[in-house]
């Protein structure tokens, strides 16, 4: 009889998922982060909640990108320090869902 054991979960890199999404990247960023507020932020909720994994702490500094933003707004809602200025990209730019 085949033994069904719990296998370790295989995590798919977020980049692979984002490759399936169509973006028309605007040269003007629609997200601005006041990164000085991030330096002593222990929680860094943005790093965890962003569904595109756009926020990262590297060497104690906040790094982020806006190019593959799914435009949900979760980051600015989660940021307790209100350090994220978030707006929609210009009309027609940014993400375009096709199959969802």
């Amino acid at each position, binding site marked *: 009889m085949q033994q*069904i054991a*719990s*296998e370790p*979960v*295989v*995590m*798919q890199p*977020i980049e692979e*998922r*984002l490759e*399936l*999404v169509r973006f*028309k990247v605007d040269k003007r960023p629609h997200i601005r982060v006041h990164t000085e507020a991030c330096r002593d932020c222990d*929680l860094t*909720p943005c790093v*965890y*909640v962003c*569904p*595109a*994994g756009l926020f990262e702490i590297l060497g104690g500094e906040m790094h982020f990108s806006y190019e593959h933003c*799914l*435009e*949900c*707004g*979760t980051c600015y*809602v*989660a940021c307790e320090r209100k350090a994220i200025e978030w*707006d*929609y*990209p*210009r*009309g*027609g730019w*940014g*993400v*375009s*869902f*096709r*199959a*969802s």
Partner: protein
Amino acid sequence: MHAQQQFDVIVVGAGPAGSSAALVLARAGLRVALIERGEYPGAKNVSGAVFYAPGLLAELLPTFWDEAPFERYITRRVLTFLGKESAFSLDFRTRHFATPPYNGVTILRPKFDRWLASKAVEAGALLITSTVVDDLLYEGERVIGVQCRRDDGALYAPVVIAADGANSFLAKKAGLQREFSAEEMSLGVKEVLRLGERTIEERFNLTGDEGMASEYVGEATGSVKGGAFLYTNRDTLSLGVIVQIASLAQQRVRPYELLDRFKQHPAVAPLVRDGVTLEYSAHMIPEGGWQLIPRLVRAGLLVAGDAAALVFAAGIFLEGMNFAVASGLAAAETALEAHRHGDFSTATLTGYRKRLEQSFVLQDLQRFRLTPAFVNNERLQNLYPELLCQAAEQVFRSEGRPRKKLGSTILATLRCKVSLWTLLRDGWQAGRALFF
């Protein structure tokens, strides 16, 4: 002011709320601008997506059932409590949901929203895509138009309907909505997997155009508050997880990792096997319920759909698009009335709220206002699904030993982890939230 910049009504957002409103207003002969920030309607929109009570639109569009791009009508509803390696399901199916007006249909938003907006355009609305509305224009306290993010971007109308979605910057700028807290907003992440029509019918026991809406609580989202869903489209599956943003941040889990875990759960993996992912998407959902609903009206402005937090996320109910459509229609009727009287004051537009109070929109949200908090109960999320599975396992276990009667077996399992008192209290709260 150019004549072409003056409209009778401006609708911001070509989702279900905005397009329904624009359709009714254009049909009544008003000059309607329907403004959408995406390249096409639906480009920025994500739902599960089951559209419940589609009859709301079929009443307006007689050709709806022949023409509307829906995927499958829902005849099977499943609710599953997921343990770590087990699952306990309630599985309901009925042919009574298999004839028009269907109880619910699955849709793909880029297709469906584009189609619905095209109906508003056929009725005479002017659809302006690729255009962000940055702000409202005022005369004194009264909203008299919108400022689009383009040259000469001012558009004027005596009444504006803000159907600009979950983030609704317009409702906030108008002072109707406050800043959101991470406790009352959820994040949904979703994948669409291609499986093929035949595989879907065989795997989910469906015939023809029948469809299934299946929802999961418990291990579906690990220790994060939320749930998961799996819906059948014609030849694809829509599946995803919906989690409370505050809980996600506290548990320090990434939403797409939850998606991976859900897809690989032993009770889910066989259902999605060999599925080819076509797209990944995400959207914020105003799931806070009754207390998240903003003021809906000010002079010259009505707020509808997700922008007004009209989302019915009450445990076994996960509905939004029907609430959006109904609120869009109510907003349109109110705007029509205002035009008939030439009066766009707060007093006249308050008829919008009254219409919603008389419909299921505010009645359901009010009646089930305790449910969102109940659904986020720590034990309901992280303990009871596992316990339910353990109890079932004890009941069904056959080991060649004498059995106790079921009551003692189940109680013994439950009482290892939770006191009878807590159990009774949670039972009472479940009752208050959903039953009486």
